[in-house]
């Protein structure tokens, strides 16, 4: 894409301008404020409307057009009308507006901005081989971990592996120290030897002790024999004195007392029962009751028929029936008649008479019905009345004998019967009491008889105590007889024996104590885990070293693989853009510098052809920086798009010295063979250098 003609109606301070451009190198010259930057802005925002060049401020009155010739020979006019433009440079060139400003349309500050080169897709596409764009990141990740483990240059005391190796050496030293401390098995061996000696000595000391102990006991026994014999004699005498108590039953008295106690309880219960009966009889003589028993029982038996015999108002014929039960109809009829008579007398003569008549009829009917049944033998009515009277008389007689209060036949008979039964209980209780009394006496007599054998209770209790002592005395006699019967003649006197015993005991204790401490020492050595712990620590430390070394070696191998891969890849696929940039830089620096094409570089770098020294951005002068970045951007501008948009440079060489300006102009002229270049400058020298390189010059 090459600009052929620019027409401006109004844009910033530029009004009614019409200028033609050469398809190759163009120089637009004018003093400050002549409108060079405005013209660059007009072209840029017309072709790439979204570009933010910032100056001048867009206005609705802006107008103009740019005629361009495309690579395919088409001629297109892009028009600015107010704040809008129909420019489609972005679509035609396949780059965005920011890339256009960063690579193609630059002021000095745009030239120095390489963000788009180093961080965007441009680096991967043009400055390295495919996939190489992230090589520096990969290297950084690998090398930071790898060199932290082990640096490449000099050995570092603080690096990971060195510290782990030191720890391993320390742990191994600790193991050696502990093992040297143990000095093989010398100490253990000495302890075992000493233990053997002590064990033998202990055996001998034990035998000596046993003998001394026996001697001591023997001498003591012999010394005490006479005393023991005297003691024996006294005990024999005592045994004789106690012999009487030999068969004393220590629990016999207790048994007898318990028996008495039980019998007394029986006696007391019988006595209470008798008292209760006597109280219930209220002073009446129970024997009198017994004498009248038959009579009272006869009165009681009569009690059931008493009412019948006593009823003298009942007709004689009815009496037997009544005994057997009057017909209910007769009774009901009589009842009704009585009620009828009462009603007639008191309330209504007619109604009452009627009721009485009905009742009479019913009663008669009832009597007739009865008369038709088989009749029982007629009872001697007159005789029954006599019986009642006789029984009453008998009752009167008995009641007066017992002087009971009179409350009627039945109540009186019940009172008499109660008295009779209480009297019977009384007789029974009296009998029991008598038997209990005899039993209690018998038990008391037995106790008394038993104690009489010991002359009383005190004597018995003494005999019990003596019988216990007798057992003890006999046991002592037996022991003393045994101990005194075979006492040998003492080999040494008591003092000598005691002294020998004490010495033997002391020796034995000392040996046992030493043996115990040796056992403990042996146990301590056997159970000492310090060597084991040190071995474990040493093993762990070694493990960590091996782990770290393996990790380092893997990272080193990864680096070696990447080194070899990048070397081979760049050897066979050197990026074309870097070749071109190298050419431009060489041209601008008179062959002194070339571009570094090492894919491991993380930023743009150059190589001093004279010294071979690589220089990165921070080592460049500002002039050299402009040259490097311009070279790279020029190279990129040729490859970024097939429809190459014009390169528009706004006095980017203004601060460069004459030599750099001249060299740059040569490079721009070379660039313009492939892409249109429009250079705006207020610098006469630059204008002339460009003109001498064949640039078409436009003076504003």
């Amino acid at each position: 894409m090459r600009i052929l003609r620019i027409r401006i109606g109004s844009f910033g301070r530029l009004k009614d301008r019409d200028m033609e451009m050469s398809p190759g190198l163009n120089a637009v010259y004018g003093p400050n404020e002549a409108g060079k930057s405005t013209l660059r802005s007009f072209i840029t925002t017309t072709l790439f409307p979204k570009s933010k060049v910032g100056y001048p401020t867009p206005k609705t009155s802006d107008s103009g057009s740019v005629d361009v010739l495309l690579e395919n020979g088409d001629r297109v006019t892009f028009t600015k009308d107010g704040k809008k433009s129909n420019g489609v440079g972005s679509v035609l060139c396949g780059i965005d507006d920011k890339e256009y400003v960063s690579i193609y349309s630059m002021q000095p500050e745009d030239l120095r901005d390489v963000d788009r080169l180093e961080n965007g897709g441009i680096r991967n596409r043009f400055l390295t081989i495919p996939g190489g764009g992230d090589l520096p990141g990969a290297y950084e990740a690998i090398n930071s971990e790898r060199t932290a483990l082990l640096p490449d240059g000099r050995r570092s005391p603080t690096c990971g592996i060195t510290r782990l190796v030191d720890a391993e050496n320390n742990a191994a030293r600790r193991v050696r120290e502990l093992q040297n401390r143990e000095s093989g098995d010398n100490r253990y061996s000495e302890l075992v030897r000493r233990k053997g000696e002590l064990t033998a000595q202990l055996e001998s000391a034990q035998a000596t002790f046993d003998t001394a102990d026996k001697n001591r006991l023997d001498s003591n026994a012999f010394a005490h024999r006479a005393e023991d014999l005297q003691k024996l004699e006294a005990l024999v005498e005592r045994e004789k004195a106690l012999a009487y108590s030999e068969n004393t039953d220590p629990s016999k008295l207790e048994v007898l007392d318990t028996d008495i106690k039980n019998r007394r309880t029986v006696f007391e219960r019988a006595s209470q029962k008798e008292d209760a009966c006597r109280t219930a009889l209220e002073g009446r003589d129970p024997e009198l009751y017994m004498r009248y028993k038959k009579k009272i029982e006869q009165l009681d038996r009569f009690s059931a028929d008493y009412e019948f015999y006593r009823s003298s108002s009942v007709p004689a014929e009815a009496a037997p029936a009544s005994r057997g039960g009057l017909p209910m109809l007769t009774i009901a009829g009589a009842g009704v008649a009585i009620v009828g008579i009462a009603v007639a007398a008191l309330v209504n003569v007619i109604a009452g008479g009627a009721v009485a008549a009905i009742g009479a009829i019913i009663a008669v009917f009832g009597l007739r019905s009865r008369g038709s049944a088989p009749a029982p033998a007629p009872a001697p009515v007159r005789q029954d009345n006599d019986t009642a009277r006789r029984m009453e008389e008998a009752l009167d007689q008995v009641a007066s004998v017992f002087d009971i209060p009179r409350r009627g036949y039945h109540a009186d008979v019940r009172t008499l019967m109660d008295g009779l039964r209480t009297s019977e209980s009384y007789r029974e209780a009296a009998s029991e009491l008598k038997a209990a009394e005899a039993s209690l006496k018998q038990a008391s007599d037995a106790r008394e008889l038993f104690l009489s054998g010991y002359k009383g209770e005190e004597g018995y209790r003494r005999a019990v105590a003596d019988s216990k002592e007798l057992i003890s005395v006999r046991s002592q006699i037996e022991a003393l007889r045994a101990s005194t019967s075979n006492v040998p003649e003492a080999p040494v006197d008591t003092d000598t024996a005691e002294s020998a015993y004490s010495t033997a005991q002391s020796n034995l204790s000392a040996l046992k104590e030493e043996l115990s401490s040796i056992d403990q020492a042996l146990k301590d050595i056997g159970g000492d885990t310090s060597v084991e712990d040190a071995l474990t620590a040493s093993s762990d430390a070694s493990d960590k070293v091996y782990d770290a070394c393996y990790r380092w070696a893997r990272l080193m191998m990864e680096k070696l693989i990447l080194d070899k891969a990048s070397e081979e890849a760049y050897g066979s696929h050197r990026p074309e853009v870097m070749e071109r940039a190298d050419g431009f830089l060489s041209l601008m620096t008179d062959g002194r510098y070339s571009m570094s094409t090492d894919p491991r570089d993380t930023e743009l770098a150059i190589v001093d052809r004279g010294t071979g020294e690589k220089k990165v951005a921070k080592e460049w002068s500002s002039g050299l920086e402009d040259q490097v970045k311009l070279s790279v951007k020029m190279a990129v501008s040729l490859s970024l798009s097939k429809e190459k948009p014009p390169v528009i440079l706004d006095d980017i060489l203004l601060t460069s010295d004459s030599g750099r300006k001249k060299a740059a102009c040569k490079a721009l002229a070379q660039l313009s063979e492939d892409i249109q270049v429009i250079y705006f400058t207020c610098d006469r020298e630059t204008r002339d250098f460009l003109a001498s390189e064949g640039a078409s010059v436009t003076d504003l």
Partner: protein
Amino acid sequence: MGCEFTFIHCADLHLGSRCWGSRHDDPALGKRFYESTFASFRKIVDLGLARADFMVISGDIYDELTETPRTRLFFASEMKRFSKPCFIVTGNHDARHSWSESIPYPPNVYQFGASPSKYRVNIRGTPVEVTGISFDGPHTDENLVAKLRGSPGVFTVGVVHCEVGTAGGYAPCSMEDFLGKDIQYWALGHIHKRMVLREAEPAVIYPGNIQGRDISESGEKGCMLVHVDGGNVSAEFVPTQEILWKEVAADITGKATLGELIASVRAEIPSDSIIGLDIVGRGPLNRPIRRDPAGLAERIEEETGCPTTIRKLTCTDDIDLEKLAQGETLASAVVKAGDSFYNMSEEELLDAICCTAPSKDVRMYLEYFAKHGRLHDLVREAQLSAVSRILEGSE
């Protein structure tokens, strides 16, 4: 040789030896590791008491450093408990004796010296001969096997610590050395992996060590219970290990979540084992696992109760490495560069890795990995890690 009898053959007890390669700073696990060799040997003695007539131990009862009073007292005490004849030789690790004077073995233990000797035991009326020879120091280039001979007509067990088929300093010998010596059973020690070099006439057997001590000694460990009937030998391996080290491959291929991956390996993890995880395969889990491999190990440990470490991380994104190597991207170059390193020998790799001045200090440690062929694994891990970094960065 018509008698019938049974004996135990074990070797490489390494009592008190420490375990490597699991997480540090876990005292309970450390204690479990430490006790494991003792526990395994205790089981062997139990087995011997129940089923064997005698025992042979083919060297390396202790490590150099671990022959402490505790370990020696333990062994002496177990031998006393065993009470039946036990024949032992020393190996390269226990050639130097400590505590032998003060903590002697009980009289049922017969220890062979640095010269060949023979013992005869009478088993139910029939003599059985045991011959053996011990290491005299931590190394020997002597062919100790060649020095042993049995007795014609008597079943003979040869006990020796040696390395078959190498020229190293551990009593090197060849298979031919075992033949024609009137020895019917060669009880070997030194190699920690169980190997039956020859089943009969004569039987030549390495029982392996009795307890694995790191993930490279994975699988069941124990002793051989050797039954001899009419001169015919049948050897049965009896596992006695206290801790089982287990290598488990976790294949991320076709797995969408870590949960799926964990579920796929759970069945392969025996209870109470120590797991060394090899993460292999291709798929989307490559990235999250590479970002936090320890996190995956912790999750498996939480779910299984088995201490777990990542042993190898050789998984990749869902890419075909062979195809990738044919491209012209940096990742392609990485694959090819990794392959070129992979084709080097362990020694060449060691030289390549130790290319800086300070790395001379770590070379001796890396030689251990080179000796065990681990540097090729290391190259593969580094290659795939580098590929993942480059591909992840390029997205």
